Every structure is written in structure tokens, then in C-alpha cells.
């Protein structure tokens, strides 16, 4: 069969999802794919658009890369809007040319509805849909103090949050009597309003704007039908979306009365060669303004193009769960009880700010819908009841009552049928997950890779974990979290036992809570916990046997039994004199010298007995240990910052040195790396570190839990525009919470991914102090900082500790015979033959 051409108009999330799915299908062999996008950028995640103001870039939000499109053989035309469709000759036209198609997919999405108000097109009026819109809003906000969002729906509140994050006094103007009129009822909307106003966003409901005129106290004035007015510097219209059906209309395809390209169950339009998916498509008189139904349409169309007779779009669940300005809001199914005979159960706690409503069927046996404001805890459970038609328990009210009042536990993963949809973004059912486990997946990570569950919006991650754990348990796979055969506890539990009971030695801990003599798993773990808790010298007699050799001898063992030495060079800043000392010492001891990735110098090839002598010289020159051997802070990398750089906006070197000196020596579950960049160009590569700090013109943005190395992970933006003090307080808390709760040898990236509740939870604990431990964490850190000593200084000054560095205790002059050397590129390196295989 000859290649045919399939053209996709629109490169948004749904258009992209279609391409992804289509490329994996057999039909892809018969088609050349051509894509037209109106925007300059490749498809990006519009759901998380407001993160663009939090520091995310297009690359962060992008759904794929140009390389991916290349690799799939897709012909990509960005910044090239289609201007017309000639159905008779099957040709689409753009300003750049004419293109023939055999099949045409319209994924043109929607456009923001701008109410017909006089003056709505002047300077300072914006919509909130594309990255270009956001760039324009940001530019305008630089000269503004206040901003109004017209529209109090889901998108409007997102936009209000964005204005707030730009430092503006934000207002929301809503025509309806309450916020989120589609998803919430009066009580829920009222509570949401109260919470949002508490956060400093002013809400104006029942306001019909009649005109926008020049303002007196600000650039613009909004005049309302009730003769009141509101002055503001900029206005963002977010009053709903309209399907983008202009092209379809112009070429005579059937469209709905109020817009939308009419499609059948296979997502095909009135022209059999033309299909429509996503927000531009009208199915059964309905437009679906969420991404998940758009994805379902895309998959349906792919199946139909692959001649699947059963392919059919049959509507979609419009339930939503989101966090608006930090407030949980959830709306499920028939939230407004429109089904005849429906009954309600409401729980409204004005004290703690929780509103929960369940809509029950007439017989009270099935859940039809629900509304949640203030806490989405019960959302997953309620959604499963609705989607799967599971019969409610005898006391259904227990599902929304606080647990202390005898609430029912969440619906167990066991109770879900195999058809239950766990991840709606990628349409993964419980059955799919079971299959993945039967095929050999034994943890959440591998199930995610195998099924793609929880890799879309991520909202189902907690539920996914429950399903995986319960299925593993059913198959007799014991999910053992014991540290090792000596301790039936996790690292976190041991930390707690040590801290709470004031235990200071390994012997005490193992005799009280463990058995046997310990091993190379539990000893270093406990050593690290003891150090984190009490900060005693690692070479204190009781602690020596707990450490890995690197920690014991405070250097990094290399393959021939010699060590490497890395003195601390805070922030990578070093005087010529100190640099000369490093050179002289290296020369004297014939040490192979290499610059590290963390802006320090590594000296290789020192024997055990040379270590104290070398350190005496380094300490005399003002060096301290660099903890390159420890599960502790390594370096704080920095760019040169505002002191020299033309672009720098803050003193990144100064901040890096301060951070490095603050956290040096801290013992953690694994090594910790930090970096500080002096401007948004990010020369210090802070986003690949456990803690990355990037200067802004107002202060510092903090990124957490990034990683380079084997499994790179971009750090997540955690807080913005922090002052020096706020930055340090925030890092103190996150570091200490990590030290207390992470597993053994768990880097921050993996820790965060495994933390139930993820980034949001971490923010609650650290920024909102939801556990009430903020001060305690800071205090603990302050104690550690104040008890810091250079371990090497303490060691060389103590004859007892120096005894540990004898290579052979009975023969001081004896050289280790296996350490033999050769020279390469002007330096010494080991010769070593491996003895056993």
C-alpha cells in the first residue's frame, strides 16, 4: 500500500497525544504524518500553564522534543496556521503553501471567550491560554500593581493565582453568585471564596461588567451594571472557552448551534475523511473542556483509523480534583444532584474549613456525585464509588466524616473491580496494573514505566501505590521494609527510636531494638543516624566500627587501597595562595591531581599512613575536610554572580559560601549537593542538585530534589523570591525533614518521589508547617550547625585517633607491596592486576 498523508491541524496536548498513540499503532506504517501548529512552540502542558510564572520554561512544560518528532518521521510545521481547507480536492492551505491530505484530523482546541464589553480590546486586556499570552501578561505586570481576572471558574482562579505570584493585588470578578458555578454549590463556593480571600485575593461576585474605561487610580476602570466600579492596571479574561471551529465552519463541516465540530462516536465529522478531537469537537451536543476526555477521543480515533470496529467514544467523566491557590477543590459526577430523586449528605465544618457533599441515588445505595472543598482526602475513594457503581456501605456518611468521629477507612484497593480506571490520563485500569505485576513488575516505579499509569497529571499516584502494594501482597510478595536481618525497622523508624529515647551508641540500640552483631548495612545507617542526631565525632571510639572505610578514614578509598583527598573549597572560591598549597602538597606526596565536577580539587593516591600528615599541612594552610567521603553535604557549586558577571542579579558566590559553611558536616541518608546561580541563565546548573538556588531580582528561587548522575531529575520549584533568611529557614526545614524521614541511601529525588503526597505534601510540611514541626526542625539544624567541628582537625590533634592510620601496626616502615605505580600524562597512576575472578 502506498503511503498516504495524514494531516493534523493543531499541536496542543490532545493533538500531540494523538500523534504519540498513532505512531505506536500498525496504521502508522501506511501514513506520512504532517502537523501544523499555530504557536511557535511544540505542544506543551497547558494544564500546568501557571507554573510558567513559577520559573518553569517551555522546555519544562513541553510534551516532547523536536528530536522525538524527527525520530517518528513526523513533518512538523510550527508557527504556520492553516488558513483554509478545500474538502473537494483534499487540500489544506497555509500562508506558506498547499498540502494534500488523505485523512485530516482537527485538534484545534478552543479559544478563550471574551465577553462583549466595550473597551475590552485596549492595552492591558489579556486572555490566559498560551505561553505568548503569559509573556504578555508578565511584561505588563512589571509596570502594574493590581490585576483583575474576569471569570471565577477553574481557569479564572488559576489565572488569579498567576497574577498573585507576579506580585499583583489580584481580584476575581464573577458574573454568577458564586465561584466555580459549574463544579460547586453555594456552600462550597462560599467556603472557597472565604479561603481565597484569606489569601489576599479579592472576590467580587454578581458583577456584570458594562464598560472598561481609563482608570483614575490605575490604568483601567471596570464599570459594573450596579454602578460600582473597580480600578486596575490589567485585566485577564477567563470567562470560559469556545471551541475553535473557524476552519471547519468555513469549509462547510457540520457545527453545533453554539459552536463545536459535530463528531460521531468514532470522532469523525460530517466529512468521512475529516476527524475532530479535543475541545473543538462536539459529541452528543457536548464539549469536553478537560484534557482526559480529549485523550480518550484521540485514542478512539487512533483505534478507528486502525480499523477497530469497536472503537467508540462514549462520553467522559468530568470529575475534577485540583488545588486552587493552595485550596483543595473536588467535584465528582452529578455534583448538583440533577438526577431525579437524588439525595444529599452534607458535612460542613466551619472551624477547620472543610465542606463535603455526597449525592446519593434515591435508594441510597449508589453514589452519584460529590463536592469537596478544603480537603481532597476522600476524593479518590468517592470517585471510585461513582465510576464503578460500587454499592455504598450501610453508613455512607462515614465516607466524608472526619476519621476521629468513626469515619470509614478509604475504599480498599481490593474492593475495586478489574475494570476500575486508576489513571484516567492514560486510561490504565486496575486490570492493566495486575497484568504488569504478573509480567514481573514488583514495585510502583516499574509499574509506572510499564503501564504509564500516574505519568500524566499524577493525581492517581497514591491510589496506584495502594493497588500495587495490595496486589503484590496478594501474590505473596512480601513488601519487607526491614533494614536488615538485625533490625526489624525502617531507617525512619530507627531515627525516631534513637531521637526519642536519646540512644547514643550502636550497642545500646541493637541490644534494645535489634538482634545479633549488626552488619555493613545497619552499622553505617545507625552511624549516620547517630551523627544526624548528636553530631559526635565520627572517630569517637564507639562510632569507629560503624563507618564505611571512607567515613572511618575520612577519605575516599580507591581500587588499590589508597585514598583520595578532597579539601573543602566553599563555593569553588579559592585564593591563589591556597591553590599553591594544594599544588605543593600534591607534588610532595606525588598525588594524582584532578579537578572535580563540584568545583574542587581531588588528590589521589595517598596511603593510609600519609593521610594525617597531608591533612596537617592542609589544615595549617586553612583548609577543612570536604566530606567527599561522607553521606553529607558535598559542595555548593556557584557561578560568579553579580560581583563580576554582567547579568548577575545576586551575589551567588557569597550565598554559596554561606550555605556550604552552614550545612558542611551534616550527616544525611545520602550525599547532598547544592548550587547557587546568580541569575536565570543558571550557569551553576542548580536545577540538577538536591537543593538549587537561583537568583531573581527580588531574592532567591529555591528548587528541591533534583539529581544528576545515573537517573537525572530536574529539581522542582519549591518557593520563590525568598529573602536570605527565608531561604535558609526553608532549606533548614527541608534538609532536616529529609534527614529524618528518608530511607537509607535514598537521595532526595527518590525520597520525594516516594513521599506520599509528593511535592504538595512537602510544601505543606515546610511552608505551611502542617505537622507543627517547623521550629523543631530549625532548632535541630541550629544545634548541628553550632556543634560543627572539622573532623580532620580533631583527628590530627588526637594521638589516639591518629593510631588508626597505621598501615601495619607492627611495621611502620613497611610499604604496601601491591601498590605499584606507572606514569601517564605526567602523573602517577596505579598498576593493579586483579587476583581472583
Amino acid at each position, binding site marked *: 500500500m502506498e503511503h498516504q498523508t495524514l494531516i493534523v491541524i493543531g499541536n496542543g496536548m490532545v493533538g500531540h497525544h494523538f500523534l504519540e498513540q498513532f505512531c505506536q499503532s500498525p496504521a502508522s506504517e501506511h501514513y506520512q504524518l504532517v502537523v501544523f501548529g499555530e504557536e511557535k512552540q511544540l505542544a506543551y502542558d497547558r494544564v500546568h500553564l501557571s507554573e510558567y510564572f513559577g520559573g518553569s520554561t517551555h522546555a519544562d512544560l513541553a510534551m516532547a522534543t523536536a528530536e522525538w518528532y524527527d525520530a517518528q518521521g513526523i513533518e512538523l510545521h510550527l508557527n504556520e496556521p492553516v488558513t483554509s481547507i478545500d474538502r473537494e480536492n483534499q487540500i489544506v492551505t497555509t500562508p506558506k503553501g498547499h498540502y494534500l491530505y488523505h485523512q485530516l484530523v482537527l485538534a484545534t482546541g478552543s479559544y478563550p471567550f471574551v465577553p462583549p464589553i466595550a473597551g475590552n480590546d485596549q492595552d492591558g486586556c489579556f486572555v490566559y491560554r498560551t505561553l505568548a499570552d503569559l509573556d504578555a501578561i508578565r511584561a505588563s505586570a512589571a509596570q502594574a500593581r493590581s490585576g483583575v481576572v474576569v471569570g471565577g471558574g477553574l481557569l479564572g482562579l488559576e489565572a488569579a493565582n498567576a497574577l498573585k505570584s507576579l506580585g499583583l493585588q489580584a481580584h476575581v470578578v464573577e458574573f454568577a453568585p458564586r465561584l466555580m458555578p459549574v463544579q460547586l454549590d453555594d456552600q462550597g463556593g462560599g467556603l472557597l471564596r472565604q479561603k481565597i480571600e484569606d489569601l489576599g485575593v479579592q472576590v467580587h461576585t454578581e458583577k456584570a461588567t458594562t464598560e472598561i474605561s481609563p482608570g483614575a487610580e490605575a490604568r483601567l476602570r471596570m464599570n459594573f451594571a450596579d454602578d460600582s466600579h473597580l480600578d486596575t492596571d490589567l485585566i485577564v479574561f477567563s470567562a470560559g472557552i469556545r471551541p475553535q471551529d473557524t476552519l471547519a465552519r468555513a469549509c462547510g463541516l457540520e457545527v453545533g448551534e453554539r459552536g463545536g465540530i459535530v463528531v460521531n462516536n468514532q470522532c469523525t465529522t460530517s466529512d468521512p475523511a475529516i476527524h475532530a478531537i479535543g475541545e473543538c469537537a462536539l459529541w452528543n451536543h457536548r464539549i469536553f473542556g478537560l484534557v482526559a476526555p480529549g485523550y480518550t477521543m484521540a485514542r478512539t480515533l487512533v483505534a478507528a483509523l486502525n480499523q477497530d470496529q469497536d472503537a467508540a467514544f462514549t462520553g467522559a467523566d468530568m470529575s475534577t480534583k485540583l488545588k486552587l491557590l493552595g485550596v483543595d477543590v473536588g467535584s465528582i459526577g452529578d455534583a448538583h444532584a440533577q438526577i431525579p430523586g437524588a439525595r444529599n449528605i452534607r458535612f460542613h465544618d466551619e472551624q477547620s474549613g472543610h465542606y463535603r457533599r455526597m449525592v446519593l441515588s434515591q435508594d441510597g445505595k449508589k453514589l452519584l456525585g460529590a463536592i469537596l472543598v478544603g480537603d481532597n482526602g476522600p476524593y479518590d475513594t468517592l470517585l471510585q464509588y461513582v465510576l464503578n457503581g460500587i454499592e455504598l456501605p450501610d453508613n455512607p456518611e462515614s465516607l466524608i466524616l472526619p476519621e476521629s468521629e468513626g469515619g470509614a477507612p478509604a475504599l480498599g484497593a481490593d474492593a475495586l473491580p478489574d475494570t476500575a480506571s486508576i489513571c484516567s490520563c492514560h486510561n490504565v485500569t486496575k486490570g492493566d496494573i495486575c497484568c504488569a505485576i504478573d509480567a514481573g513488575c514488583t514495585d510502583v516505579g516499574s509499574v509506572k514505566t510499564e503501564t504509564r499509569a500516574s505519568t500524566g497529571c499524577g493525581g492517581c499516584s497514591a491510589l496506584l501505590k495502594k493497588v500495587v502494594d495490595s496486589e503484590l501482597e496478594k501474590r505473596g510478595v512480601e513488601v519487607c521494609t526491614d533494614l536488615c536481618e538485625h533490625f526489624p525497622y525502617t531507617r525512619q523508624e530507627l531515627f525516631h527510636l534513637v531521637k526519642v529515647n536519646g540512644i547514643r551508641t550502636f550497642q545500646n540500640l541493637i541490644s534494645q531494638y535489634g538482634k545479633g*552483631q549488626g552488619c*555493613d548495612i545497619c552499622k553505617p545507617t545507625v552511624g549516620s543516624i547517630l551523627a544526624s542526631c548528636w553530631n559526635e565525632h565520627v572517630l569517637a571510639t564507639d562510632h569507629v566500627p560503624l563507618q564505611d572505610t*571512607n567515613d572511618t578514614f575520612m577519605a575516599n578509598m580507591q581500587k588499590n*587501597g589508597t585514598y583520595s583527598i578532597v579539601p573543602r573549597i566553599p563555593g569553588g572560591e579559592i585564593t591563589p595562595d591556597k591553590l599553591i598549597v594544594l599544588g605543593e602538597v600534591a607534588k610532595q606526596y606525588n598525588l594524582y591531581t584532578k579537578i572535580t565536577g563540584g568545583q574542587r580539587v581531588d588528590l589521589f593516591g595517598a596511603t593510609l599512613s600519609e593521610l594525617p600528615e597531608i591533612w596537617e599541612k592542609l589544615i595549617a594552610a586553612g583548609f577543612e575536610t570536604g566530606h567527599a567521603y561522607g553521606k553529607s553535604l558535598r559542595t555548593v557549586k556557584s557561578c560568579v554572580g553579580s560581583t563580576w558577571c554582567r547579568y548577575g542579579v545576586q551575589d551567588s558566590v557569597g550565598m554559596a559560601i554561606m550555605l556550604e559553611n552552614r550545612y558542611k558536616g551534616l550527616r544525611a541518608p545520602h550525599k547532598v549537593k547544592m548550587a547557587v546561580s546568580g541569575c536565570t541563565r543558571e550557569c551553576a546548573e542548580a536545577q540538577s542538585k538536591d537543593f538549587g538556588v537561583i537568583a531573581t531580582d527580588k531574592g532567591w528561587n529555591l528548587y528541591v530534589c533534583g539529581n544528576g548522575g545515573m537517573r537525572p531529575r530536574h529539581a522542582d520549584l519549591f518557593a520563590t523570591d525568598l529573602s536570605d533568611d527565608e531561604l535558609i529557614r526553608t532549606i533548614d526545614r527541608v534538609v532536616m525533614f529529609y534527614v529524618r524521614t528518608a530511607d537509607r541511601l535514598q537521595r532526595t529525588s527518590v525520597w520525594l518521589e516516594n513521599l506520599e503526597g509528593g511535592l504538595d505534601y512537602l510544601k505543606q510540611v515546610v511552608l505551611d508547617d502542617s505537622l507543627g514541626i517547623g521550629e523543631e526542625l530549625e532548632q535541630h539544624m541550629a544545634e548541628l550547625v553550632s556543634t560543627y567541628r572539622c573532623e580532620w582537625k580533631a583527628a590530627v590533634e588526637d594521638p589516639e585517633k591518629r593510631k588508626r592510620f597505621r598501615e601495619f601496626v607492627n611495621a611502620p616502615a613497611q610499604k604496601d607491596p*601491591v601498590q605499584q605505580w606507572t606514569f601517564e600524562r605526567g602523573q602517577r597512576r596505579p598498576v593493579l592486576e586483579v587476583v581472583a575472578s
Partner: protein
Amino acid sequence: MKAPTNWVPVCTVDDLVADSGIAVWTEDGPVSVFYLPNRLPALFAVSHTDPFSGSNVLARGITGDINGEPVVASPIYKQHFSLRTGRCLEDEGVQIKVYPALLDGNRIRLEVPVVQAAPVAA
């Protein structure tokens, strides 16, 4: 017939570190001596050479017990060696030398083969 051996003094009690090892030099090469005060006997001596890397490092490994067997973990690639038999727990075919050890007053003695002066090869 058993090869001739000597019980040679290698160090004193003060040199030992509880629950850890030290290295000594003998005519038979480098040996590590471990002192585990919670066991009986408390003294163990095995070769200091890690057979997997060829490096002299075993005295610097972490000691402990695996299913009751006293072990040291190589600091290079982390294999465990029984302090009683010298056998590698991860690889049955690999074994390191074990030296009988005893406490003689304040001194530690090891039983080491007597080395005959070998003719120097030309």
C-alpha cells in the same frame, strides 16, 4: 605432615579496636586482626588481601554477623568473608587465608607458616 609454624607476636591489646580490624605485617604477608568483644572467641585473623580487587584492605571493612556467622565486608566491592573459615559468602569458590590467633598476656600471637629462605631467582 603439618608444615612448620610459628606463633608470632604481632601487636598488643592496645592496638586493637573493638568491633573492628587492624592490619599487621607477617612473614606470610599482610594479615588483618579483628576483635569482636561480644563473641567467644573474640579474636579473629584472616588475610588482609581482598581477593576480588587484589588490594590490602580487609582490616578496614565493616564487621558483623550474617545468620550468626561472624563476617567482614570488603570495603572495595562489599563481599562478605567468614572470619572463622575465610569463605566468601557470595562466592563459594573463593576463600581467604585464616590464621589461628590467641591472647598471650597483653600480646596477640598468630600462627604463621615458617618461611624457608627461598633461593633468589636469577
